[in-house]
């Protein structure tokens, strides 16, 4: 037990702890006065999120206490379970703002797509581990299919942002698993070209591949003012919020953009805008540094992993967190299209938090069972 404790990555735990506290504080500021709830309790969101944090810590402990090889052993069950949950949500799920991605249990909503990330990371890590090699282009087909099936199910909801995270996870893991970087760059380039073609054809109305709201989000990405009261509103208000924060920010509860509700979804997808507005450049930069340290730990654990399976797991979790960050923060800064991707550890919402905590659990797991090169 003592040895077990010794092998815990306390640096990672500390970083996650700081992020969770930071998140609860920002969430308190973002919801106390400006997000109404039926209970009339200004701390309701913070309380709920705190319960999720506790649950997340539980999940984290649970995951790191099971040897990840055991998880790998059940990869078929995990993969099938993941696919099943994604199919079920398409059949029985609830639709929230146009995306059919929720199961509802009482007052708690569960997003299977979030947990699917962990499922796909574990099973893909195992899949890549079992593959003989990744040197040939043909070797990449099966990983693509492995990720492609759940991704298509998620696109069906449709949840474009989450699907994009899967692509990021896939590429990150393939790269770390030793795929040829020219292959990866080529595929990424081809994918981008195909996507551009799809956008072009949809905009021109030749083939309606993308839904109208997706097209408008892409157009708005290039010029938010083309639809300033519609799809462009969020981006414009987010940039105003962050920009007006200046160096030091307006202070907690003082951000007018958030507190007066000019900033939509400011406790969920646009929570980073609240950080920018109320804590300024310094607060935002601090948060970015925390994430950077987190990813540094992820990469470190990757190199320390006892075997390729462990390294693949660490790569997957790191890639997942990285892509969440880039897509979410990029969106609030107006350099990424608007997608409903939460900010890890900060955004209000249980599914996302549990997923990220499960990811941390995996990282701790791999770290704990790392190569024994120390003097013991």
């Amino acid at each position: 037990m003592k040895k077990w404790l010794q092998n815990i990555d306390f640096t990672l735990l500390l970083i996650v702890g700081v992020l969770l506290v930071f998140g609860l504080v920002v969430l308190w500021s973002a919801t106390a006065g400006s997000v109404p709830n039926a209970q009339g309790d200004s701390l309701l969101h913070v309380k709920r999120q705190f319960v999720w944090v506790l649950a997340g810590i539980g999940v984290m402990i649970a995951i790191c206490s099971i040897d990840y090889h055991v998880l790998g052993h059940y990869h078929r069950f995990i993969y099938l379970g993941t696919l099943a949950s994604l199919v079920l949500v398409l059949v029985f799920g609830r639709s929230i703002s146009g995306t059919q991605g929720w199961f509802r249990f009482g007052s708690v909503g569960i997003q299977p797509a979030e947990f699917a990330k962990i499922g796909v990371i574990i099973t893909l890590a195992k899949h890549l581990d079992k593959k003989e090699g990744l040197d040939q282009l043909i070797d990449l087909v099966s990983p693509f299919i492995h990720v492609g099936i759940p991704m298509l199910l998620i696109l069906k909801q449709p949840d474009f942002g989450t699907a994009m995270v899967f692509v990021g996870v896939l590429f990150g893991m393939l790269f770390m698993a030793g795929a040829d970087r020219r292959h990866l760059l080529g595929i990424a380039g081809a994918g981008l070209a195909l996507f551009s073609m799809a956008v072009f054809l949809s905009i021109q109305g030749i083939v309606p591949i993308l839904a109208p709201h997706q097209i408008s989000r892409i157009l708005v990405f290039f010029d938010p003012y083309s639809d300033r009261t519609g799809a462009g509103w969020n981006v414009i208000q987010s940039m105003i919020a962050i920009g007006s924060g200046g160096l030091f920010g307006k202070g907690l509860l003082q951000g007018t953009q958030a507190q007066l509700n000019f900033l939509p979804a400011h406790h969920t997808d646009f929570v980073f805008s609240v950080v920018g507005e109320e804590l300024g450049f310094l607060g935002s930069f601090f948060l970015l540094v925390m994430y950077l340290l987190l990813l540094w730990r992820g990469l470190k654990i990757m190199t320390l992993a006892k075997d390729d399976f462990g390294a693949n797991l660490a790569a997957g979790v790191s890639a997942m967190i990285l892509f969440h960050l880039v897509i979410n923060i990029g969106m609030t800064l107006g350099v990424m299209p608007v997608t409903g991707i939460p900010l890890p550890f900060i955004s209000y919402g249980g599914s996302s938090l549990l997923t990220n905590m499960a990811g941390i659990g995996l990282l701790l797991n791999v770290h704990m069972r790392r190569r024994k090169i120390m003097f013991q």
Partner: protein
Amino acid sequence: MDNKTRVERARVLGWCIILIFFLLTSRLWYLQIVQGQKYAAMADGNRIRWVRTPAPRGRMFDRNGVPLATNRASFTVSLLPGSLDGEMGEQVLTRLSDLLGLTREELQEAIKKGISYPYEPIRVMQDVPAKTVVAMEEQRFELPGVIVEMAEVREYPNGPLASHVVGYMAPISPSLLSAWSDLGYYSSDYVGMTGLERLYEHVLRGEDGGSQVEVSALNRPVQVLDEVPPVPGSDLVLTIDKDLQELAERSLVEHLAKVRAAGDYTETYCGVVVVLNPKTGAVLAMASIPGYDPNRLSDAGQRGTYYTELSQDKHRPLFNRAVRGLYSPGSAFKPIVSIAALEEGKTTANEVFYADDIGPYGIKRCWTLRNSPPLPAHGNVTVRSALAESCNDYFWEMGLRLGVDMLAEYARAAGFGSPTGLDIYPSEEEGLVPDPEWKRQRFSRQPRSEQLWYPMETMDMAIGQGFLLVTPLQMAAFYMGLANRGTIYVPYLVERIQRPTGEVIAETRPRAVRVLEASPQTWNAVIEGLADVVKSGTGASAFRGFPYPVSIAGKTGSVQLGPGQGDAHSWFCGFAPVEDPEIVVAAFAEHGGGGATTAGPIVRMIMEEYFKKQFEPAGEAAGDLEPIG
């Protein structure tokens, strides 16, 4: 995979991550530090609204402080036209028409007329009953874009009284809005459209105040950041005497009705009375009949239909005849001919002229001969009796003796052909004093023979007919000159401008801009002649039995119109007391016939009422006296 490759790949990934973080940080820096000021301003622009507090409009009072135009708090309903698009807008209109009891057409009409910007509210109804206001508050979420508020609306407590003087208010027109763009008008503002409301718009309006309000994204006020109180508009104290004005309007309406009923002149509906104080030029009453009710014209809900009704009325109630109506002065013009002839030595006060009432050149007949049955010719007349009896033959003769240029010169000296300078909107007509040069230009496209000035036309002019055109106000100003033996003051309507506290900002000083120069003998002869008109001459019938010992001077006028143009216009202009005139009254009735029949009695009624106050002080004043001892 060996550990070395793994570390190497992790390092590549690490650098990628650092690059990504560097880019995000740069973007943060750009937004927060480089563009921070701009975004801070935009955030303030989001949350801070300027909410206007309209200044209370200045009121108008008569010379004794009786209110003529005031303000009244009223629940008003306004619409934001921009929020009325689509199906939702249709529903809002349906609900609103049910609530307000207006038809959808009326609502749409009001919107169409009021629209200038989609986000400026249009007032569709005022004086909304409290019950309706409550009902609307209950449904406020089903009525987006509908604004119910307490607003001050203009009220004219005396209704149509002095409507042409006071004027009315209406939403600012797009052309005025752009002309007054520097003055801070909003397209939802009401402005004075005519009368003093318009002329003194910038005095009455005051300065709007407002508050800087922090609002939420739903435009709900959160807190007031700054407040600037409005500066109320200034009040106007008019020269108008409300009682006299009321009397002038009532006598016009009642007497014209009486004349029509008598059957001689059945088309006389329109008339003017102007009452001046000859000592200052102050306008004590200025009535133009028919008028209109400015309350209805200023009311958002009624304006449309009422305005249409007024503009289609053949008697043109919106037209201020007192200053814009152009008529021949008829015989009421003769005093200036007398003065000219006496002053130019074309006659003397004692010259006896034999009037056979067949004009020079033998073509014209005086009114005596055209009467049925014909009256005897005037016979021997002097300037005094020619005025008293309105002898056309005498004035034809004098006109020819003077010549058109001399006539025109005296007419202009008396103020004809140019505005008197009254402060009114729309401004006065100039009228016309014709002369040969004018005629040549006026008919330059006609044959040469049409351009020539003929002696016949001089004769017409000498009896106030022909091309000569005057406004009733010019006539009143001219008679003020007669009453003053020369001095003509600029008539004025605003006695003073004062703040709501009573502090006087500006006061009108009488200005004598025109003096009719004539010798005392001339004045005596002319004024005696005018006094004889009332005593024994053409006006005597109208003034018979005047109850007060006041000497009155005046002149009748009867403007013969061309064939098919209806009955003659009726004039009477006069002043009293002759020795020291206090009041000048000019009355005019379109198609009123003879001066003594229609206009004369109206002048008498006004003078009677005016002098009644002097000779019969109000009864209750005596009763108020405390018994001594």
